[in-house]
């Protein structure tokens, strides 16, 4: 009996780590937009939702195999991010940041409604993608999609590191984040930096949306997953990409540990609340997060 519960804890923590990495990945894409343009994107959760529906549509309606439908979704999301930036956000450059944030709240509501209108209100499961739904990881049964998820997450984190260190666009984005006018004096187009940040953000978020969709089926609950990213990025520091990953993992582990505690405490739904307790505590004791830059309050 005792032993069984430790097994359960191990399995929970492993799942927490994987889910946490997903929070981290979505967190990174959130921070990316914030760093480039100081916009807090309240529609980040809807990026997951849209990505998951588009991939679902490719797999169900067009009967595409996952390995085609998945990359195709990423391309569609990239285009979606660019169009969104160019059509909705670019005209707002120069407006007060708070108005832009209000617009993203509006976007989130519009996207929610649009998805319900296009795909209906009932949750839709993904087709069976993997030959066996779970695999054995050092004694714990882990869903195959989670294994894929952690691999894809690591590739994304590595990709980000490479992109910001070595690519021309990555350098331009960092320069823009640090000093927009100085970047422009070097010939960097701030317009393309902003468009790129939304494109990458939408694309990366949709990966998380697809993974969670495969596990739980696609429904508007997905944007709630996106909301958990707030505690993660606040914990890590709003303007730190590494912070987002670390914050995401901590939140993932904590909420899954909460499930274990709940087993004994019997509070019920502790998992749902824990991230937001963390959010409040962090805001009280360490408002810049673990890796955040102090002067971000000047914004």
């Amino acid at each position, binding site marked *: 009996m005792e032993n069984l519960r430790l097994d359960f804890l191990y399995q929970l923590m492993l799942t927490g780590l994987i889910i946490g990495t997903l929070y981290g990945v979505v967190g990174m894409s959130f921070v990316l937009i914030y760093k480039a343009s100081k916009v807090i994107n309240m529609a980040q959760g809807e990026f997951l939702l849209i990505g998951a529906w588009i991939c679902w549509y490719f797999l169900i309606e067009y009967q595409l195999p996952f390995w085609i439908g998945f990359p195709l979704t990423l391309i569609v999301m990239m285009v979606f991010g660019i169009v969104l930036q160019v059509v909705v956000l670019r005209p707002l450059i*120069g407006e007060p940041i708070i108005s832009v944030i209000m617009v993203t709240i509006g976007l989130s509501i519009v996207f929610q409604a649009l998805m319900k209108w296009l795909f209906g209100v009932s949750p839709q499961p993904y087709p069976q993608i993997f030959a066996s739904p779970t695999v054995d990881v050092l004694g714990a049964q882990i869903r195959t999609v989670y294994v894929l998820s952690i691999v894809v997450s690591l590739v994304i984190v590595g990709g980000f590191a490479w992109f910001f260190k070595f690519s*021309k666009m990555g*350098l*331009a984005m*960092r*320069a823009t984040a*640090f*000093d*927009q*006018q*100085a*970047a*422009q*004096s*070097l*010939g*960097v*187009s701030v317009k393309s930096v902003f468009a790129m940040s939304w494109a990458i953000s939408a694309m990366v978020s949709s990966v998380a949306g697809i993974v969670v969709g495969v596990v739980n089926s696609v429904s508007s609950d997905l944007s709630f997953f996106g909301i958990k990213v707030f505690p993660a990025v606040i914990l890590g520091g709003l303007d730190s990409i590494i912070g987002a990953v670390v914050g995401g993992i901590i939140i993932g582990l904590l909420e899954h540990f909460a499930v274990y505690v709940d087993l004994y405490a019997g509070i019920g739904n502790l998992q749902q609340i824990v991230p937001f307790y963390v959010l409040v505590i962090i805001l009280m004791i360490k408002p810049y997060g673990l890796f955040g830059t102090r002067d971000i309050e000047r914004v």
Partner: protein
Amino acid sequence: MTAAMAEGAAETAPPLLSVNNIEVVYNDVILVLRGLSLEVPKGEIIALLGANGAGKSTTLKAISGLLKTEDGEVTRGSISYDGETINGLDPGAIVRKGIFQVMEGRRIIQDMTAHENLRLGAHTRRDRAGIAADIERVYAYFPRLKERTGLAGYLSGGEQQMLAIGRALMAKPKLILMDEPSMGLSPLLVREVFGIIEQLNRDLGITILLVEQNARMALEAASYGYIMENGKVVLDGTAEQLKSNEDVKEFYLGGGGGERRSFKNLKSFKRRKRWL
């Protein structure tokens, strides 16, 4: 005599850059430049001098297109470079044409390394091999930068100025607009930086429009100078003419007689004796 000769030369070869009677307005209301004209002949170092707030940086931003980023606009006149009108273009397009502004305060990207800052300077270029070779060339000019592998924010003021100049070179500019390179540097470093500016001009043939508060150093390096006040050129001439001009001596070269006036006296004196 010399001015006449310069004019004769200007007629045969049009200047690389000419600013014709421009008017600049910020936020649609604040009129800062009121009919400013100047010419920068190819291969020269031209000084643009004037007190704080005269509109020197605004002039450079009008040329480089950065005015747009501050809600400023050229509302009258024109700026032509290499035979083309360039006012209204994006800063990126202007960098691609070969004009590069080294902004006041150096504006190094502090959370990047020196090497990354240099790569950033080549943002408008596509030739990978050429970029790598040019980074080495910049290091040859500024060996100290190569030793610094940490973040550029930790470099000294002098090193940051050298990095800013090195970063400009990475764009392969024909014309560099240099805004107060001596700002905040010790006299020894100022000398070193000016030495570098003259060397770039001599060895690489880069034309330089040099904005300075340090008129003495600037007129040593430059062949010709303009003096601005209140958004206008109030005096121009060869460096020699300006250096021997009594008013310039009094205002910019630190008083002819050597006796110090108090700041208060100097101010009222200035008010009485402005050029316009």
